[in-house]
């Protein structure tokens, strides 16, 4: 088993994984559910997520050289284990398809009007399939390479938009806090930040597994800074009503920027940033799904499954919703419980069963061959 993922790579990938989607697609939803409580809800949700991901860490670190997909059956029983892993895989495929759909909708509605959606999805799918087939270390290295540029660019945008902010409304971030709004926001953010839990399915790949929780903490901190640096300007520029009704509020914020006469609008540059970051996210999700299926079925080489699964994700992204409205409704209302189940409830069940079995002093075999090696 080649331990190929370092802490800095985890930091880079998860930062891109979290802040890109939140800033690109979820700001409107966050603002509509939490209004001025959105920043507070984001902070609480983020740190709560790090704490709730801990059961996954405990279970994965109980056998650091084995994959959870392989030894999980011994904890909860083979049948339930298969069901749990399938649920996790389905959720991951759904999230990949969702992100792909949101990205293609964004491009088709703003920049590529009249282009058929299948062509946009096809091209991107080829990139994702190539990355998944290349392996985990390639995906993490790709994230590491683009993280710094993306982060700097994402942080620069709010500075450029400073002129348009309604500074008098800043007080509302502290004075307009409501418990219900915060709760809604926390639930959304738990779902977003909880994707950290998926890394524990790949625990044997990590070079420094004991440092993972510390890395998660700093990742959460840095992605929070970047998210808040966009969320607060959007809230203060557009307010709650307009902000929650805009489909892509961050895009509108960028269109406010006047960067001199050289380039009138910077938003096409945004495409490049979002695309690379979303690409990394979707590739990672697809990779974890592929490797789980390969390990569940006992297939030695996961690469053979990468193309069909990515193709399925592509078709699912086209067929998953009839309109953007349906998709937004789904993301806002129906998706969270299932995602939270996959990220927190299932690992918690494994953890409970692990403690129960440990108490009963059952021993485990030393090593097994795995599809990931």
């Amino acid at each position, binding site marked *: 088993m080649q331990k190929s993922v370092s802490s800095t790579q985890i930091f880079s990938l998860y930062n891109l994984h979290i802040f890109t989607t939140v800033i690109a697609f979820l700001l409107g939803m966050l603002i509509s559910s939490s209004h001025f409580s959105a920043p507070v809800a984001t902070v609480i949700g983020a740190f709560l997520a790090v704490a709730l991901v801990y059961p996954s860490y405990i279970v994965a670190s109980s056998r650091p050289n084995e994959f959870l997909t392989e030894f999980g059956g011994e904890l909860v029983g083979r049948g339930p284990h298969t069901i749990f892993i399938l649920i996790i895989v389905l959720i991951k495929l759904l999230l990949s398809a969702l992100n792909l759909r949101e990205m293609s909708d964004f491009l088709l509605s703003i920049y590529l009007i009249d282009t058929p959606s299948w062509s946009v999805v096809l091209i991107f799918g080829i990139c994702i399939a190539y990355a998944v087939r290349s392996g985990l270390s390639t995906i993490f290295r790709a994230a590491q390479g683009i993280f710094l540029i993306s982060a700097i660019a994402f942080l620069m945008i709010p500075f450029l938009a400073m002129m348009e902010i309604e500074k008098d409304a800043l007080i509302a971030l502290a004075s307009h806090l409501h418990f219900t709004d915060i709760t809604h926001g926390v639930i959304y953010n738990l779902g977003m930040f909880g994707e950290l839990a998926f890394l524990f399915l790949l625990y044997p790949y990590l070079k420094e597994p004991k440092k993972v929780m510390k890395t998660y903490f700093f990742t959460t901190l840095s992605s929070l800074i970047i998210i808040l640096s966009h969320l607060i300007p959007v809230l203060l520029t557009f307010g709650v009503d307009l902000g929650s009704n805009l489909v892509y509020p961050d895009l509108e914020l960028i269109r406010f920027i006047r960067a001199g006469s050289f380039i009138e609008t910077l938003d096409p540059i945004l495409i490049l940033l979002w695309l690379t970051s979303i690409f990394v996210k979707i590739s990672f999700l697809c990779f974890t799904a592929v490797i789980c299926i390969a390990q569940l079925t006992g297939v030695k080489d996961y690469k053979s499954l990468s193309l069909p699964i990515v*193709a399925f994700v592509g078709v699912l992204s086209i*067929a998953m919703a009839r309109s953007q409205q349906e998709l937004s409704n789904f993301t806002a209302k129906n998706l969270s419980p299932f995602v939270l189940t996959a990220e927190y409830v299932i690992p918690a069940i494994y953890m409970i069963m692990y403690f129960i079995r440990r108490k009963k002093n059952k021993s485990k075999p030393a090593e097994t061959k795995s599809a990931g090696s």
Partner: protein
Amino acid sequence: MIWIGAMFLVIIVFEWLSQRKAKVKRRDKWIVLGISVGLLLLSEVLFKLKDKWNVTMLFEFVGKSIDVWISG
């Protein structure tokens, strides 16, 4: 629909040939084939029914059923 079938067919053939070249065990080849065919069928069904029924509607239905079950 034809294009989805064609795409999956190309993928299946490509994977079969590359697995054969790599001298992969027969069991693994059949599993990959089975999964690919299963995903092809699922894709075709999803695409065919995308205007009448889709994944978001399924989740909405499941969510409502669970709500009804919980509230009794």
